């Protein structure tokens, strides 16, 4: 995925400020990438190249780090992001059923984004809310003790929320 030209300047600015914040220390490489991912919801390849230049590191090293850690994504994620916890505690409480059903409802596999770019979902290994298992997060909001029925409701709400937001946008 490459960025449009007008976004390049913005990228340059953001990266300069991030690299300056960490004083270009190599120990902060992962943190710098996290900050970029937080902003863009993925790592644009241009960002990797720029960081490499500014921090004086080989692009290959950055590419290696970006692909090694699961938290980084080189492809854009959806507007809404859902995580299903598949930690051990959630697993023994049937998180697998939730994953299968979510996969089927959205028509995508874990780690993918719906074709309309609205919802992406992934599985994560333990978000530390084991008492609520099986648990999912929707845009960082926790939903505990999930069942398929509850999941359907969450999805309906999410789609509803989406249309409400769009309606506001349309009005404006």
């Amino acid at each position, binding site marked *: 995925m490459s960025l449009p030209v007008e976004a390049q300047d913005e990228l340059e600015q953001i990266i300069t400020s991030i690299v300056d914040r960490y004083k270009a220390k190599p120990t902060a490489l*992962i943190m710098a990438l996290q900050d970029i991912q937080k902003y863009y919801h993925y790592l644009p390849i241009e960002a990797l190249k720029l960081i490499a230049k500014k921090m004086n590191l080989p692009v290959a090293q950055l590419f290696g780090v970006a692909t090694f850690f*699961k938290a980084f994504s080189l492809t854009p994620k959806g507007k809404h992001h859902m995580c299903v916890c598949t*930690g051990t505690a959630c*697993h023994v409480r049937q998180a697998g*059923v939730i994953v299968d059903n979510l996969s089927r409802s959205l028509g995508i596999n874990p780690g993918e984004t719906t074709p309309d770019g609205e919802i992406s979902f992934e599985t994560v290994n333990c978000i*530390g809310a084991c008492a609520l298992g099986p648990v999912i997060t929707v845009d960082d909001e926790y939903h505990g003790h999930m*069942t*398929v*029925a509850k999941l359907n409701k969450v999805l309906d709400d999410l789609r509803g929320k989406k249309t409400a937001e769009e309606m506001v946008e349309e009005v404006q």
Partner: protein
Amino acid sequence: MNNNKFTSPEDLNRLRERLVKQREEGRIIITVCAGTGCLACGCEAVTAAFREALKENQLEDKVEIRTTGCHGFCERGPLVVLRPEGTFYQRVKPADAKLIVEQTIKHGKLVNKLLYRDPQTKEVIVKEDDIPFYSKQMRLIFGMNGHMDPTSINDYIALGGYQALAKALLTMTPEQVIDEVKKSGLRGRGGGGYHAGKKWASCRRAKGEPKYVICNADEGDPGAFMDRSLLEGNPHGVIEGMVIGAFAIGSHDGYVYVRNEYPLAVKNLNIAVDAAREHGFLGDNIFGSSFNFDIDVSRGGGAFVCGESTALMASLEGKIGEPRAKYVHTVDAGLWDKPSNLNNVETWANVPLIIEKGADWYSRIGTASSKGTKVFALTGKINNTGLVEVPMGITLREIIFDIGGGPPKGKKFKAVQTGGPSGGTLVVETREPKVHESLVAHGDIRDEEEVVSLLDLPVDFDELTKVGSMMGSGGMIVMDQDSCMVDVAKYFLNFLQEESCGKCTPCREGLRITLEILTRISEGKGQMEDLDTLEEISQVMIDTCLCQLGGSAPNPVLSTIRYFRQEYLAHIVEKRCPAGVCKELVSHAIDETCTGCHVCFSVCPTNAIIGQTKTLHVIDQDACIQCGACYQLCRFDSIKRVKRGEGDAIQYVAKEKWHPPVKKKAAAVA
């Protein structure tokens, strides 16, 4: 020079005395647990509601609201404890805040519906300390969490914080500190169980400058969250431990490598580091001594393998988090090839305690080879999910049944898994014990007949290793009769295969093949030879893998084969999953207990459920995809998971036996 900096222990004591006095002025404190578990239950809204209620009743000056770190009893969150009395309210909703303020705080009356009720005895318990979940614990490290706001350094100082640092820096030599830690018998809490004092001594002896002190907060075990809760709830305790360690080792640079997935821990830790720096507990000339030390907080990428010391250090250097062979130990050549001492969060948090109270006091807690306490994350099929801190040597039975309250809904307890993905699943059959104590002590428990009551095994680094598991970082996952052991082994192997860095062949390929075989077995395509192959591959991995991720990866497989061979045989020979978990081997069927409530009807994604309200429902066996949605939903346990292909037979019998549900009133009249 900044006025806030402490240059002598007298200054610290003066502040502490002032703070303690303030605290004793009889103000009521509402402590609201704001650990991750309670946050997820909506404790922020509860805090806001309390604020509102106090304002309404004009009690803002008399009552303080303190949001604290995790109290541990996550199952009952959001938790509210009123201090100093210690009145314990559980599952508090925002609407309850007003009630608590108006009844308990204003009139001293208890709000009955929010009190804890013992599930077994039905007894109502008012005080936090009297609840069995807490009363059986020994909360040395974790106990402070409930008493302080983690973002307030004053709270930590009021509870005696940084006294140990003053003692170490001003009255002890580095060698004396190391001796004290050695004498205390403190062992690494991250899983390895290496003696902390020994490690510190080797790092101090190592040639090369600068030396680094690192805190491993890359807690990647699924089902473990004690390090997170410690960092979130008591970050100063960890910082103080690190400064003492750095002083003993002779290091001036420290790093905390914490997962980015723990945003609250990162936030609280950063606040704490800044506050410690401002007060002169970090930086130059700490306490007016000539010792300098500072900490950098580094957010990690959240890879399981980065919990391994060399991988963590590589990642800290901004490289791919791959481990290396450890012919040269990290204490000699670690971060940037300089001597580095890495300990886990909980280990560091133990250090101030040892220095303050002395090694003699500390070493009295625990067993001969494992000293102190250990925090466990008790999760899975258990009533009281949460964090528990217990003295070493306590039995698994006490943790699981006395503290944890056993499995929910009266299901039968089956096994407990300790040590995370690299640990083992232990059978703890409730058969009458035939085993002699002496046999267990020698680890000689291979004979099936003899495998009983590992529940009475003391929790201790060496004892757990002997029976094929390990202490690990402290995840403890309880499983009941509905958990399939082949599935559990497959789950862990799947996790490990995804997290394996792929650098060494035995781990990369061994895990792939093992997972393939386990998947085959769970699909009913296994063969008898598979078990031997699994054991053979496992042995190769144990012998040859580069790091402990691969080296301990076979533990879940070997321990389940060792204790649950019958279950493997059921999958291989009978093509049956006794627990009804393995999808390819089960059919869903509705039996005669169906009440016709019709709830399952709408949830079925393939419309395989046929039936109308108040009639017996039937699952169309051809249309069913075994997704389990209806099984999860049925409140009457009428949906059964049976051997693949036997669904129709069950439903045929159900049709013969089924009666329309009798109305309660009519039944009473009859």
